[in-house]
């Protein structure tokens, strides 16, 4: 615990974080690329076609990881915001600011791939399926946080406002999720979820898990890169940043 707290305090120093993240990014990025490449090969070439959906099932290897990670993004953004709020830690706000657009992009990706997957499965690009609807509301929540942060001229003020919204949102996310699911079961007509009901074969599960892992590592690398930028923006008048720019 003590060692962790020491690490935590060191990390809260922006220049320390900046240097650490610079070194850490390749350690996430390379495994992410390799894992995704392997998973893509296994998933797209080696794994069999689905007996119902044929080749279209392969979009799952993008859709599922982005849908999972979009939820993860919102939660971690809220946690970072809470840390930033409680301990007045600027770095945590920078992390939250870095996650928000990445999370919005993933949510958007999940929606688009869901729609593409929907066309051959349901015969239409959009149905008000529980998962898609939840993702859509999640996208609204992400966009709200991004827009609110940008609406303030003062960065610190925008950070704190976005933090409140993220924390309020994360309390609501499970309620929204369950209410949408419940609403959907009431009106279940066209939306038969296919991948969820039929058990998934190991030849598909393996590449899917690898892809999830690859996506996660890539996301971490991306967040670290974006956080570095946010740190530079927030600290632009500090001496260490100016020295960095000049060198």
């Amino acid at each position: 615990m003590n060692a962790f707290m020491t690490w935590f305090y060191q990390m809260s120093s922006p220049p320390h974080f900046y240097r650490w993240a610079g070194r850490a990014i390749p350690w996430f990025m390379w495994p992410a690329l390799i894992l995704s490449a392997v998973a893509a090969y296994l998933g797209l070439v080696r794994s069999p076609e689905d007996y119902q959906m044929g080749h279209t099932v392969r979009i799952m290897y993008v859709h599922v990881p982005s849908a999972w990670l979009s939820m993860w993004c919102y939660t971690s953004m809220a946690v970072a915001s809470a840390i930033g709020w409680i301990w007045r830690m600027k770095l945590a706000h920078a992390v939250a600011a870095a996650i928000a657009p990445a999370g919005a992009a993933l949510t958007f990706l999940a929606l688009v791939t869901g729609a593409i997957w929907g066309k051959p499965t349901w015969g239409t690009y959009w149905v008000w399926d529980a998962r898609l609807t939840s993702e859509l509301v999640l996208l609204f929540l992400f966009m709200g946080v991004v827009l609110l942060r940008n609406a303030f001229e003062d960065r610190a003020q925008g950070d704190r406002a976005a933090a409140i919204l993220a924390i309020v949102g994360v309390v609501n996310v499970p309620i929204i999720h369950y209410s949408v699911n419940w609403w959907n079961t009431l009106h279940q007509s066209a939306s038969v979820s296919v991948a969820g009901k039929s058990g998934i074969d190991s030849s598909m599960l393996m590449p899917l898990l690898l892809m999830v892992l690859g996506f996660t590592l890539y996301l971490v690398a991306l967040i670290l890169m974006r956080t570095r930028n946010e740190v530079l923006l927030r600290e632009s008048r500090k001496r260490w940043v100016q020295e960095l720019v000049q060198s």
Partner: protein
Amino acid sequence: MSIDSVSTLPQNTYPNVRVSATGLELWRGDRCLFNDLSFTLNLPVLHVCGANGSGKTTLLKVLCGLTITERGNVTWTHDKRILTTGEVRGQLAYTGHQEALNPALTVAENLQWGAGLYRELSNDEIQQATEEHQLDSLTSLLACSLSAGQKRRVALLRSVLSHVPVWVWDEPYANLDAAGVEWVNALIEAHVARGGCLILSAHQKPAINPEQVQTLGLTS
């Protein structure tokens, strides 16, 4: 108006509340409002002066705890004992650029509300106070019909009625005529005579006993 004639103020003396600041640093965008600003208030009156945009209002808000600085601390003490944020709030009456008068309420209702945030007070007390300060002709008017100078006077009277040891006044002299300026000075002297403390921002030094005034100049 003599000092003793301000009967709107409490009869007893105020506790000795003072403020100090160490290493305040605040930025607005890329503009540095103050960097490493430190001071200790030893006298009853702190006069903050500086050119437009030098951060007078912001400093006042920082001292009240409305604005958070990037670095540094503001410490309020009561006879050397450090006050908590909650304790400070009960001791301090703020009058900002905006007068905090609701346009749809009458002057009396506005005073009832504004001073009521600090203590319980009766209608009679408000009537008496407005009479004493020659504002009784305004009490039943809606705040939206007042002139800028009248609004200022009502807002300052609210601080007087709240019976707290610290007044924080942002530009109290703005929009006031010569008689108004004199009235404000008399209020300040009466407050100080009761052991109160005043923090004000103004371009000119208040015309009161200079031994009671500490000046803090801000440069942009």
